[in-house]
């Protein structure tokens, strides 16, 4: 075989190794376990994927600009808690605001996204105008959100939601859960922003070479603020979705989700070195991650050992991405 072709095949196998191994695992699980390849299991997996996809789409914007967002997990918990306190039943004994009627659910989504967006824009300001590295800025914001959430909820778990809120997770339209529809709509909007708007072009330009982008007239600072604001709004929405699914919320909700989201994006093809990535990358990455978890459950792997498997996947995915970047250089 031609040496170049052999090298191309080798590179393809290495660069997409994680996805290939996942598919082999999923295929093996389907053959050995009952009820794996069923519509019920598929819909459950899609439901589990939905909130994580929204998070991954938010973080993808940050990663494309060679940044990261470590505050995602805490922002998710914060969003879930805000939604939770505004949507508790009047007859619930532990109601946070005893005299307040539960609000309209669409208004609550808007409030959650606006509040999280404000914190995201503060993060973006630190990164864009104060030149703080994204790692440090988002680490700092993570701590602030944690503190504010603990003050706000007094570290008390929330529950007793109105039926309209829990129906977001249990209700269906055309046989498909509302959560899946929300994720699809967010993915479509994100695709539009990434591919059909000037803001999307600016994102990729900044990720490719921020200096060149600035010289070319890209409003780098404002774009960065918008990226982190948009991401935070998505985390708030994801928190709302997770709160509906869980029927409750606490300060700890969403903890660690940012690492999974970054890894999912990397598996799917969003580069941590910046400048590359698509919406389909996030979708593929999240799907691979969720299928991995479900397959491991069906194979009877210990729940604690699953964490190790996920950690190994994250490690390999990011290593392969950096290898691709170094090979390109």
């Amino acid at each position, binding site marked *: 075989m031609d040496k170049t072709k052999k090298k191309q095949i080798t590179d393809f196998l290495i660069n997409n190794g994680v996805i290939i191994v996942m598919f082999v695992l999923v295929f093996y699980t389907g053959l050995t376990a009952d009820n794996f390849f069923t519509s019920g299991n598929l819909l459950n997996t899609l439901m589990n994927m939905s909130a994580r996809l929204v998070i991954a789409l938010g973080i993808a914007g940050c990663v494309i600009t*060679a940044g990261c967002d470590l505050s995602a997990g805490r922002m998710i918990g914060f969003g879930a808690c805000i939604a939770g306190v505004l949507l508790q039943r009047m007859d619930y004994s532990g109601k946070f605001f005893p005299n307040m009627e539960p609000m309209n659910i669409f208004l609550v989504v808007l409030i959650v996204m606006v509040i999280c967006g404000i914190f995201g824009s503060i993060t973006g300001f*630190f990164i864009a*105008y*104060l*030149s*703080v*590295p994204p*790692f*440090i*800025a988002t*680490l*700092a914001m*993570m*701590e*602030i959100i*944690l*503190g*504010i959430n*603990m*003050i706000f909820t007094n570290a008390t778990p929330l529950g007793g939601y109105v039926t309209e809120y829990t129906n977001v997770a249990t209700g269906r339209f055309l046989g498909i859960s509302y959560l899946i529809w929300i994720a699809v709509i967010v993915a479509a909007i994100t695709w539009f922003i990434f591919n059909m708007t000037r803001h999307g072009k600016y994102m990729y330009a900044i990720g*490719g*070479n*921020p*200096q*060149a982008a600035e010289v070319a007239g890209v409003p780098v600072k404002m774009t960065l603020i918008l990226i982190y604001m948009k991401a935070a709004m998505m985390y708030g929405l994801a928190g709302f979705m997770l709160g509906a699914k869980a029927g409750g919320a606490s300060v700890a909700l969403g*903890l660690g989700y940012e690492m999974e989201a970054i890894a999912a994006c990397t598996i799917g093809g969003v580069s941590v*070195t*910046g400048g590359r990535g698509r919406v389909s990358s996030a979708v593929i990455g999240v799907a691979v991650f969720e299928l991995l978890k479900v397959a491991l459950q069906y194979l009877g792997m210990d729940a604690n050992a699953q964490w190790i498997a996920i950690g190994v996947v994250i490690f390999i995915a990011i290593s392969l991405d950096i290898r691709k970047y170094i090979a390109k250089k």
Partner: protein
Amino acid sequence: MKIETMIQQAGLPLLIVAVCMYYGIRLLVTQDAALIRGRDKKPLKDEKAYARGGGKIILFLGAGTLLMTVLSFINIYAAVGELVLCIVIMGIAWKRLADRYEK
């Protein structure tokens, strides 16, 4: 409050302190600005000085987080207030560092 509860509550902030200590000390020792500075950014007048400055700021953030952790067991409002102040100071310090050493 039991020791186990305190460790549980302080676990994540202490991890953040450890991360800040690691990066801060590493920057001060190796003086490698590439550790915190992305690629294709504006060139620096003095990379080693920038790295040292960045290391000190990150250590300051770690110290602020540690103080916040201790304060959170006394008064949560004071803890959050201290953390916000610490982060604002960090932001201003980083801006001044960038203005001083970026070409």
